[in-house]
């Protein structure tokens, strides 16, 4: 019984997630669209610095896969 309730609760939670609206609307992303808000503006330069560090440090990975920004272009 309690398990069924748990599934229902999770289902409702997921459904409510689908109906939630983004709290930053596309027209509110002008700051994020600014090129200075990219995590890395120039892939060629970022890749090189990652190489410099990884070659001289034991740590590796999770260098990041995104450029930030607004996702809108």
């Amino acid at each position: 019984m309690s398990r069924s309730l748990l599934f229902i609760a999770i289902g409702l939670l997921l459904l409510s997630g689908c109906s939630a609206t983004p709290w930053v609307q596309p027209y509110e992303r002008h700051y994020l669209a600014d090129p200075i808000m990219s995590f890395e503006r120039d892939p060629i330069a970022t890749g090189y610095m990652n190489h410099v560090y990884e070659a001289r440090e034991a740590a590796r990975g999770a260098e990041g896969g995104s450029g930030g920004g607004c996702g809108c272009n």
Partner: protein
Amino acid sequence: MPIRPGIDGHASLCPSYKAVCLLCVWLFLPFAANAAVLPEERADTMYHSYSGGGVTIDGPSVLVRKNIGDSVSVSANYYVDMISGASIDVESTASAYSEQRDEYSMSADYLVDKTTMSLGYTNSSENDYEAETVAFGISQAFFGDMSTLDLRVSYGSDEVFKNGDESFSDVAEHRRYGFSWNQILTQKLIAELSVETVSDEGYLNNPYRSVRFVDPSIPLGFSYQSEDYPRTRNSDAIAIRAKYRLPYRAAVKTEYRRYADSWGIDADNIEFRYTHPLDEQDEWILEGKLRFYKQSGADFYSDLFPYANAATFMARDKELSDFSNTSIGFGVSYRLPDRWSLFDRRNTVNLFWDYIYFDYDNFRDVRVHDGSTDIAVGEEPTYSFGANVIRFYWSVWL
């Protein structure tokens, strides 16, 4: 034939493999930046230079990315490392050398609605190391484009050789699994969580590297023997980064990464960056950076083993020791006026300089024994050095 004693700063464990994997990540970088659009079409030509610890590594890199139709983007990169000099390892156990590493890579991205899929291939070649990597990535934007999920996998296969020993040959395999979640938090704040697991198997040490052990039978008091690493290594890294737009037109970035692996190495690094355009037209963009890194060494690392064959696995690679480094960097980007711009497109010229200071806690400078010294074996000063890193590149938006 020059004897290469191993790492000279251009790579620590699997030189070509590391570079190849990084390149794959690099080629996929544009994915999540704008998951619902293709990456920018641009061409970048860079001169790069690393100089420090007696070694200079420099060369060109050219990266071109172009769209085919509305849903496909292809990129190609040619990268060269020209290595010369004599690092502390070279001075201690062998002669100076020079060599070159060439790397070619290409990738294709395919955009469908809010999903981008990509395939990449990289080949790295030097006279004693061949590496190939294939990679696949998928990126999905959702929640009104406020969130972007990015998954990546790659497989690398290496062949390792040894100059001066025609009979030596071995292989290594590398698998990487990466996940990133990019999230818009407010109108001025964006954050990202990245996790990556790496699994290596095969010949993971450097055939030229040696460990030091106490040897009372010779006047110097110590001798060298070959390193020996485990043939497997698994690592996990998790990073969180955020970028915030200040009340005036400038941005700050901060990043923290935690790392641990099956060799007993733990590492943390943190970075702060400040980006400041001088005017609304972005003619000049200035950037400053601070970065701190600290790691604990591998379980099988020692600067001086008590006797020959003291352990099953032994390393004296300074990249596996306890150490920290501090970086400071400055950069400037200048957008060329229209009258100077090629192809009537947006052109920028960029210069970045970084200074990195490495401070080793238990890697000792044995060069003190080159002259007459009263310093006892194992009591030598710990090693430290500074390195200058230059990136000078020209970018054209196609």
